[in-house]
């Protein structure tokens, strides 16, 4: 299989309400990614855009609208969406372009401007449900995911305090992230005393809607080492989508994340993930998701991720740092950009460029994962130096 590397990355600040237009956000991230590796649009042969939901930016076919800002003028360009899984999938869609042998240099951009959606971006989530069976109930995303959180906690015998440790860790990690919106020094008590949004979800168990963009540059093997001293190779990719009928699924365990991970591990030749993956950026829009995803990624034994967190294994200086960036809980959640931010984080960490967030020990292999659609899809990328 042809080798593909990430050679550059950039992201905007994640903010509650950006003054920039969606096109400008995409442009800023794309420009930063190109500048980071000394390339210009002239060098780029194709562009891939990931953006989760048109209703946020308020533009139908928003891929077309964003195309110019993403650098796509006059180039082969495509946009995809797998809901929340989009940001990590962007890396995979870009990988396809280069690993196919058709292109040597691909720019991948992820953008989301959620604040356009008035009166609150949550409103856009009303339209992700079945129009006949579910929408009349006025379902709220928080209420639905709360059910998943409940399943997970009951199945694994967890208390709110056990899960809250993730929010504490990630928000503290985010204090060291220059683009973070939600960095904070909080305690477990802060989390469990925060307002209940929908049992058992407390306000501090969730990330916030945000605006932002991120971008990476992918290069073929033949060019990667000419562009940078430290290309970060895409060793494995995987993605998997479960049935739409979420009301019939076991919500306690995301089997589709496990399948996506296995697909990536197989491609990467990884047999013992817990030994071979050094750092992880699993999707953490809710505190419990980090734990649940770690288990589905086979990086923690079933039901044991909370204990790993309590033991400090997943801290930046632990044996397996998880969300050293601060994750969605700490950096923010402009859906597709948030997940691509995780890919950027692994990229920077493996190159030793993560500044104050740098995990010690020269990590060589990292994994980024996202989750999306109706609690339905897992997207996984494994990176190696």
């Amino acid at each position: 299989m042809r080798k593909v590397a990430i050679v550059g990355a950039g992201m905007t600040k994640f903010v509650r309400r950006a003054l920039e237009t969606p096109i400008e956000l995409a442009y800023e991230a794309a420009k930063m990614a190109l500048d980071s590796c000394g390339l210009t649009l002239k060098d780029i042969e194709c562009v891939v855009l990931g953006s989760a939901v048109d209703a946020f930016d308020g533009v139908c076919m928003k891929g077309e609208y964003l195309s110019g800002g993403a650098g796509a003028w006059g180039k082969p360009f495509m946009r995809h969406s797998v809901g929340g899984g989009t940001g990590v999938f962007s890396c995979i869609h870009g990988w396809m372009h280069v690993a196919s042998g058709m292109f040597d240099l691909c720019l991948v951009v992820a953008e989301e401007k959620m604040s356009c959606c008035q009166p609150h971006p949550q409103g856009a989530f009303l339209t992700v449900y079945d129009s006949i069976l579910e929408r009349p109930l006025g379902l709220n995303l928080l209420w639905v995911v709360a059910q998943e959180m409940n399943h997970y906690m009951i199945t694994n015998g967890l208390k709110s305090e056990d899960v809250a440790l993730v929010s504490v860790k990630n928000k503290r990690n985010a204090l060291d992230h220059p683009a973070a919106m939600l960095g904070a020094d909080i305690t477990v008590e802060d989390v469990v005393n925060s307002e209940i949004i929908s049992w058992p979800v407390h306000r501090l168990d969730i990330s916030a809607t945000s605006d932002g963009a991120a971008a990476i540059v992918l290069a073929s093997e033949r060019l990667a080492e000419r562009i940078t001293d430290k290309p970060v190779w895409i060793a494995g990719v995987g993605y998997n989508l479960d049935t739409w009928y979420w009301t019939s699924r076991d919500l306690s365990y995301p089997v589709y994340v496990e399948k996506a991970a296995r697909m990536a591990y197989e491609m990467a030749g990884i047999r013992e993930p817990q030994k071979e993956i050094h750092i992880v950026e699993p999707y953490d829009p809710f505190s419990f998701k980090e734990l649940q995803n770690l288990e589905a990624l086979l990086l923690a034994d079933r039901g044991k991720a909370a204990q790993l967190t309590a033991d400090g294994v997943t801290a930046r200086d632990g044996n397996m740092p998880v969300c050293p960036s601060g994750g969605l809980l700490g950096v923010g959640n402009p859906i597709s950009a948030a997940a691509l931010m995780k890919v950027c984080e692994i990229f920077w960490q493996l190159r030793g460029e993560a500044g104050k967030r740098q995990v010690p020990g020269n990590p060589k292999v990292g994994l980024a994962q996202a989750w999306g659609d109706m609690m339905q899809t897992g997207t996984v990328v494994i990176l190696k130096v």
Partner: protein
Amino acid sequence: MATKRVAIVGVGYYGFRPVSPEVSFREMIYEAATRAYEDAGLEPKDIDGFVTAGEDWNEGHSIVDELAPDQLGAVKRPVFTVNGDAMHAFVSAYMHILTGQMDICLIESRSKASNIKNLHEITMMALDPIYTRPLDTSPYFIAGLEMNRYLYESGVTREQCARVVIKNRRNALLNPYAGHGARLALDDVLNSDVISYPLTSLEISPHSDGCVVMILAEEKKAEVIRKDPIWIRGVGWCTESYSLERRNWSQSVFTQKAAEMAYKMANIRFPRKEVHVAEVNDEFAYKELQHLEALGLCRKGEAGHLIDEGATEISGDLPVNPSGGCLGVGNLLEATGAQKLLEIVLQLRGEAGRRQVKNAEVGLAHNWRGLPTNSGAVVILSNF
């Protein structure tokens, strides 16, 4: 460039009619998929990956990817959705097979345009919210302005555009899957309501509902699956300026670039001679002519002569839109490109019945994403 050969080994479809009250979108997809599996002699478990094409607002559902897997037999499998034309899904599946991680992929796209109560408003919502949407007028103004400029620069006449409508809707009468076959006279078209001068209502493709599913396979598996795989010889896709203010108003530049990319891959130097049949976007009648020029299938300003001479009739030396095109089959929203691919596959297999182009060995499918975009793709297929 790609070294591995990939072929289309199965096609299935449902449609294409102006309304489809007898099926939900799920049932439509399920039938198209069932037919594609049957056509290929495969089952869902044989497919390595699935790619669908759809847009949220055309489906009335945010994150249409959610709805993708069940009808295809793709639950707990690799699936993703391209928010673009079916041809974008097609080239994505093609690229994924070229990587070597997958050998057999399925693509799906559909239209339930009949479900959409306010398609004009939805298209308006695709316009730039700051610069263009406040004009608050029908999106057809873009087509009208472009047609006007195209006619002015190319010398193509309104009558020649009207002849495209006559040709395509008459071809559609020969096509059992086309929803808008009709015998029209020149005056019918020229005298129909002016929607945005000089574009008249009969020059605008009506919509149809329907679904297309296709299965692609890498070379070795393709040759096992069927005796007549249809080979992908070249692909190209491109997006030009989204901004109305910055775009070229008479030429389809993205088509030129996508075609160059595809011809180069296919090693085609003289398209007019080497392409035997073409399905080219004709969502607005003038577009067929504009796209023929951009595809290099004739010189600039010559497309009008082609239609006058009958060169693009089924019996002509460059049959264009033997299926009836968008005008005759119907505008299928994101599935439009899939219909064009479908027709080329049928033509190259010799399964096109009364509209069969004789001795067709190399076919070209082209699509434009429709208003207000400046995006599209070209795929070149052959049966050898």
